[in-house]
């Protein structure tokens, strides 16, 4: 494949702080638009719909992925991207948006902010939402459906395979139909690498069948799920996967951004110059965006009798994390041994979001 045939790149945050870059030929974009269109059609989206897209546009695959799919269907696209929540709520009303595309936590945040503005999203035209890019639970689905008055569908994808559009739920909400004519799924035992029979939980692996710029063979997603081959009530015969139920590694997904503890560790080491003792806390209050907190123990190597020095250390760590990982985090300085004492042993990540339906702590 000559490099000249590449028409687009996207990127996701990599494990080392350098983004993982993915490339697309014109044909890849065409396939991607097609599988995204399928995703939307499975939620009964047609050319009469107005699709409000609040996934981030840019290197992140969410915004442009949904955008191209919605245009392929012929819906009217409102390319909002993230942020500007007040304006988002105004435009959902003004354009009579029927379709909402964003992360599930942002959907709840929209409902929260709308409430503060005296707007009830259930009274808008919103009918269906396509939520993904981060793990979420059935309980969260019920909350979104209740508070926004729409049907909340789960969509799945990852940049290395294509982006969103790899699999998605239909209106029956019983598993995500995998676009297996383009992305062949397998579930393997993460230890042995051997394929597992249908219905058994293991690591999801994809082989791309039609991709040109960045084909993948048995790409290990790190996501845990099961495959089912019985036909769905909607009539689709494509293999279905369960909502992702966990990770095989320590990666956490915060506001659609992949975060590895090793990245945070590298930043802290660079900022304070000594081996950090830290723990990462992820929390999701109802109606709020995922909050990332990094607790760093203050050892004698970094302690200063001057407040400014410590406050500066805290600020620099926050800035570096934001710039390296592209996700905001609050850095909190804590006393030594505080982490072990209150959190149990040397656990690096405390995820309180209950994102896989099992409490982490």
């Amino acid at each position, binding site marked *: 494949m000559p490099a000249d045939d590449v028409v687009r790149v996207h990127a996701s945050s990599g494990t080392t702080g350098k983004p993982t870059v993915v490339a697309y030929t014109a044909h890849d974009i065409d396939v991607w638009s097609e599988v995204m269109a399928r995703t939307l059609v499975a939620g009964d989206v047609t050319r009469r719909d107005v699709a409000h897209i609040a996934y981030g546009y840019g290197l992140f695959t969410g915004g442009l992925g949904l955008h191209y799919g919605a245009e392929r269907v012929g819906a009217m696209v409102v390319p909002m991207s993230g942020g500007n929540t007040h304006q988002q709520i105004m435009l959902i009303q003004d354009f009579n948006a029927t379709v909402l595309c964003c992360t599930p936590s942002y959907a709840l945040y929209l409902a929260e902010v709308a409430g503060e503005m005296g707007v009830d999203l259930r009274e808008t035209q919103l009918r269906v939402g396509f939520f993904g890019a981060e793990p979420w639970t059935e309980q969260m689905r019920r909350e979104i459906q209740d508070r926004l008055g729409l049907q909340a569908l789960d969509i799945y994808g990852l940049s290395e395979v294509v982006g969103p559009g790899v699999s998605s739920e239909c209106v029956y909400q019983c598993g995500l139909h995998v676009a297996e004519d383009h992305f062949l799924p397998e579930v393997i035992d993460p230890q042995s690498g051997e394929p597992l029979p249908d219905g058994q939980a293991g690591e999801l692996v994809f082989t791309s069948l039609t991709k040109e710029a960045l084909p993948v063979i048995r790409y290990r997603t790190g996501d845990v799920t099961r495959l089912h081959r019985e036909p769905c009530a909607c009539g689709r015969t494509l293999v279905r996967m369960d909502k992702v139920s966990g990770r095989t590694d320590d990666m956490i997904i915060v506001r659609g951004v992949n975060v590895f503890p090793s990245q945070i560790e590298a930043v802290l080491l660079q900022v304070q110059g000594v081996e950090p003792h830290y723990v990462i806390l992820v929390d999701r209050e109802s109606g709020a965006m995922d909050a990332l907190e990094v607790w760093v123990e*203050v*050892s*004698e190597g970094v*302690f*200063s*009798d*001057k*407040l400014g020095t*410590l*406050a500066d250390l*805290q600020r620099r760590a926050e800035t570096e994390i934001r710039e390296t990982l592209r996700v905001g985090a609050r850095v*909190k*300085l*804590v*006393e*030594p*041994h*505080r982490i072990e004492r209150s959190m149990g042993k040397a656990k690096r990540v405390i995820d309180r979001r209950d994102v896989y339906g099992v409490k982490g702590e």
Partner: protein
Amino acid sequence: MRITQVSAFMENRPGRMLHVFNLLSEANINLVAHNIVDAADFGILHMLVDQPALAMQVLRDAGLTCRSTLVLEVTVPDEAGAFVHRVLRPLAEANVNIEYSYAYSSQCEGEARSVIKVDDLERAEQVLKGLIDG
């Protein structure tokens, strides 16, 4: 006069100050002066004690992060303008920066005591020679 100050890192939550002072009290260490500077969720406790080395050891053994710092103890007459004329102005004119300072009571009547932490200890001592007691 140069003296050793002990500083400890504390999270800003109930009971932390009690914890530190209690450790010192149990080791029979007398606290001469203290001062806290605080940021949003943590603070730094500065202490003058009668046995700084023992205090450091007690606090470290309890798992606290602490350090000792040389600071200047200055004693001036307890009267208006004494601190300004004998300490602050001479240091400012010599371009010595005061990073932080706190006052405490003196055992002797007619005296006022303060601690100053400066960026250039030797220069500060030269400047203040003869102007302050001790």
